[in-house]
């Protein structure tokens, strides 16, 4: 069951990215989007695909997600291109780009027929829309500045578990914005998500400057 949920999650993400003009998606960007969408899922009453991650030298990366990405590409649901193996001081790495494959549309139509699929699709659309609205230079950096990923005390290979909402610092921060806004201005979930993305973008800018 989890395999199917993961695949649906990925298909919706790649589709949303395609619609937001982020096509094709680099492998690195897919993993970072999966990570951000996992962190902020409770904001939209969604269940994260996975709420644990190990900090990694290449940024957020999920081996199981990678396997499913390659499977989907083989099935023709996604496209894969520019596979490139590199070897540097960080070790071996393979980069590739993923896009919308020929089989994607019928699968999406099928998924949207269920209430769960509809809700998940709407949520992931919002995540990607918020992500895509950021400055291009910040896109691949924001996940690294995320409040869960960059939580105090975390070292280069820390295991991060945000399955409990009180330990999900990204969620807590996104929900904090309502307390600093004027009394009558209650942000919607979507506004909280966008504000959080902007907050990460500002962190990236501060680090760069």
């Amino acid at each position, binding site marked *: 069951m989890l395999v199917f949920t993961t695949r649906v999650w990925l298909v919706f993400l790649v589709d949303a990215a395609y619609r937001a003009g982020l096509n094709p998606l680099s492998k690195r960007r897919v993993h970072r989007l999966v990570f951000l969408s996992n962190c902020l899922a409770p904001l939209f009453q969604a269940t994260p695909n996975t709420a644990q991650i*190990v900090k990694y030298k290449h940024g957020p990366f999920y081996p199981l997600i990678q396997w499913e990405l390659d499977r989907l590409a083989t099935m023709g649901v996604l496209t894969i291109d520019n*596979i490139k193996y590199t070897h540097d001081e960080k070790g*071996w790495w393979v980069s590739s780009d993923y896009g919308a494959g020929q089989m994607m549309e019928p699968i999406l139509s099928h998924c949207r027929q269920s209430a769960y699929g509809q809700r998940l699709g709407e949520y992931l659309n919002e995540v990607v829309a918020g992500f895509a609205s950021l400055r291009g230079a910040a896109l691949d950096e924001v996940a690294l500045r995320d409040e869960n990923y960059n939580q105090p005390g975390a070292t280069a290979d820390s295991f991060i578990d945000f399955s409990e909402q009180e330990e999900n610092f990204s969620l807590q921060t996104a929900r904090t914005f309502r307390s600093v806004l004027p009394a009558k201005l209650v942000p919607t979930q979507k506004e909280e998500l966008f504000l959080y993305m902007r907050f990460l973008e500002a962190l990236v800018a501060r680090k760069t400057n």
Partner: protein
Amino acid sequence: MANTVIRFPVLKRLRISGYQLFPGTDGKGIDHSFERGVTVVVGINGLGKTTLLNIILRSLLGFNEPAKFDPHDPAAGSHKMVEKETDFFTSRTANLAKDAQVEAEFAFGSDRLKIIRHLDTLAIEGLFLNDKPVTGDQDELQHEIVKASGLATLYDFFYVVRSFTFFLEDKVSLIWNPNGQFEIFRILFFDPTKSKEFAELTDAIKRKDSKYRNLRVYYNKAMEELKRTEARTGSKSTVTEELRLKRVDVNQLEESDAIIRRKLEKALLSRTTILEQIQKTRLELEEDSRQQEGLLDSFFSRAFPDLPAVVANILNHLDGNHGCLVCGTANPKKRHKFRELANQGTCPFCETNNVRTEKVGALTARADGEIKQVEARIDVKRKNLSALEEGLKKSIELVDALHGERAGNSFKLITAQGELEQLEAKLPPSQEELDQKRKKLDSEGREMKNLRLEIVKETKRYSTLLAEGRKNIEQLAAKLTKSFEFYAGEFLAEKCKLSYREEKRRLGEEGELLNYPNFHINMTSAVSPRIGTARMENTQVSESQKEFVDLAFRMALFDAVRQPKDGVMLVIETPEASLDTIFVKKAGDLLRKFGEDGSGEPNVIIASCNLNGTGIVRSLLGVDTLDKKAVKEEVPKKIINLLELAAPNAAVREDGKTYLAELAAALSK
């Protein structure tokens, strides 16, 4: 007799400007001067008749209302006044009555008071006493209005205006409601300073009566509790043993809970550790796999340079034994076969020989060795991962089992704790507990006793004041009954008399029975044509009798209270509502007669009427008693025609001519 001089408000002129509901014929709103006698506010449903009467009412009262006021039980609440903000006049306009204003000039005896209020906030914008401006804050200005009436308090002023002068659809009955009747007697006939004290005493006694009854409920409960506690004395031996055993049970269950909790914490920690190890191993495996694939890819991409990315990916995965991307199998059988075939110059898919070009050499021994080293590392990590995954599975099972065990133990613990509490409640009380309960009961008993004494003392004073007031009323009884008989006789075919008696009622729910002055009516009927019967309830008379008996009583009261040269005012909403044809004429005659009576300041009757063919407009204006000239010259001065002055609603827009024709017919000679 009371030495109060009460001046009733009599409207002399009304100007309403800037209010969208009443634009007037020229956009300047309504400006009407009131003549002696009856003025009719003519309209149809929805044109604003009630709103116009309310504007007159609120020009006197503003937002002030008693904290609780029920027209059907008018004296039930306290005499405390509050500002009740409502949307009286804003809700029917598109601009929330911005810039709307009422300017009302009233006579209070020989004094003239001009009140200017905003209609949105009802704040007093200007107040003029005999043309001289009065200054002060809102409370002071409102107090000046009350002062002009000679009444003691804002509440009394409210009650006289709302329940006596105004006879609105939601009206207070003064004849059928003994409490409402007595309240007007207190205001009109008691000595003014004593009337205020009397009202304060009324509120205080009612409040204390209610508090006393509440206290008694608590006192009785505490008494029962003490009795139960005292009954436990002597029930020691078996309970103590049971209690001891139950405490052992609870302790054991608490210990078990602590043990399970510790096991659970350990299991959760272990689960997280394994999870972390799995994730880290997967990342390491990923790196090794990519290295292996990278080394292979450099060979395959040289051997088959035109392979599409997706096929190259499948090939790398298969040969590296990283699963079949086509079918999803994790450990495909043809490991190394693809590499071997390619190394021999054979296509790894269709096995055709000599497909590799001369320029591309076979996999070097060094590269092959490097790949094999990585493969060895991968194998170790795969085994580790497999063991970890097995460990995670067991860890999850253990966590689930411990959750279940803890839930079962918690249920037993809660049950045992409940049983323990029950047993503890059966234990004989300590002397300290008994003393505490007795002390509390004594204290509550004393408080009740003091309260009762206060009630008795205040009731005594109340009773004295009541007797004085009753005496005043008894002195007026003859005048009042005579006056009533006259007005009632004008309207009713049956003989209707006012009878005075003392009526026993309680103040509060449990106060002593006191004698209150009360007037009720006695009326002849078809079955008792000469003597008549007492009609104590309003259900004992017809609808039209009910309304006009109350009106006749008001008129009689006015006569009894007003100063000889003073005028009075009655504001009546749709008097025709409950009348049949014969009584329409009688009602008109009665109100006209009352309105035109007197040689001093004029009386003013303001009646709102619907154009509904009942003939009430004609009757109230006395068209049949006037000559043509008077009808032409005088009658228009006594009409506020909302068909022309109010913003036309759909009925007026569609049938305005028909309504105007009906009005013209009502006024024709």
